[in-house]
């Protein structure tokens, strides 16, 4: 069985750890997700609750909320994306460094939610690629934590090394 886990048995391996580059890179990435709180409406309140002491998102290694896109790698779109705001959301996404992920939190960010109206974009996936959708209006903090753990699983299975090599090759050309 091919495992992506980092395993180390000191009796067998001594001071050497044998593993795959992907496993190491992903292990590092998924335990240091720095979310960018894109709080646009009521869901943002629930996002704050997830970060506060009761639900404590830091238990899962992603509590470092950064309000600058340049310092973060996971945009949590929490709230209603209006057409007027869509441009801003995309620009902030563009300013985030690779690798980056997007979580659409709540019905509004996922599909437009209850706002079937002229002013609301029917899902943020119209402008940015979404990795995880969270249902609920608003989702409970547990649901967000679950989504973030799903995202960690997803990061854990990415072909990071080949992507890194690819990026290096294209940038060298």
């Amino acid at each position: 069985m091919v495992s992506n886990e980092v395993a180390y048995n000191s009796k067998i391996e001594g001071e050497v750890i044998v593993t795959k580059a992907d496993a190491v890179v992903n292990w590092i990435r998924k335990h240091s997700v720095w979310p960018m709180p894109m709080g646009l409406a009521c869901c943002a309140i629930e996002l704050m609750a997830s970060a506060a002491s009761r639900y404590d998102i830091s238990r899962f290694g992603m509590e470092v909320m950064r309000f600058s896109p340049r310092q973060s790698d996971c945009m949590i779109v929490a709230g209603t994306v209006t057409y007027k705001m869509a441009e801003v959301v995309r620009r902030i996404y563009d300013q985030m460094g690779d690798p980056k992920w997007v979580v659409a939190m709540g019905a509004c960010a996922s599909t437009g939610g209850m706002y079937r109206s002229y002013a609301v974009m029917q899902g943020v996936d119209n402008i940015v690629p979404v990795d995880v959708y969270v249902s609920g209006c608003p989702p409970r903090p547990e649901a967000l934590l679950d989504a973030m753990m799903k995202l960690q699983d997803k990061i854990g299975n990415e072909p990071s090394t080949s992507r890194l090599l690819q990026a290096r090759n294209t940038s060298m050309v």
Partner: protein
Amino acid sequence: MIDKDFIEDLLKKHPYSNVKHQNDCLTLSCPAQQIIDLTTELRDQQTFDLLVDLTAVDQGEAVENRFMVVIHLYSCIHHDYIRIHSDCTDNESPEFPSIHSVYPAANWHEREAFDMFGIVFTGHPNLKRILMWDEYPYFPLRKEFPLAGIDVPLPADDVVEVTQASVEPAPMMGGPFVSSGQGFMSDAEPRAKDESWTEKKEKPV
């Protein structure tokens, strides 16, 4: 106190205004040209010093004066409200005098009424859209505007180039948010009145 004497006195001073019967608070009608005069008097002489709200109503194309501006004033002395109804004259390109000079708080309210109804407030210092983006071509709260919206390009060209996104009418099928308002609740509720484009019905070209 807003009592009979107060109202009589007010009407005597402003013969152009009328009392409209409303259940909650004193409601006056006033022609658009006299609105500055009336509000100035209410502010300075009658202590109605607080502008609570300024908005507009679209009464539909069939009505002679389609657009009506509604102003709510509050007096911190009387502890009571006054409402003023005032019709805009032109139905095609409605205009209304800005009361920004009397109540500076009217600034954003008038911008909102302009944004949603297209009422031009003459004399307003900064009359531009406040909710929709500047280039938006429609006035969404007018009666003929469909709730779902109308196709227009997104305001940012570079974002459109990357994402191919645009402003599209929202799908209305099965939305429980607009009641058809007729018949039994079970028939009326989950259907939208405005189904110009749904999953089942093709978008009209």
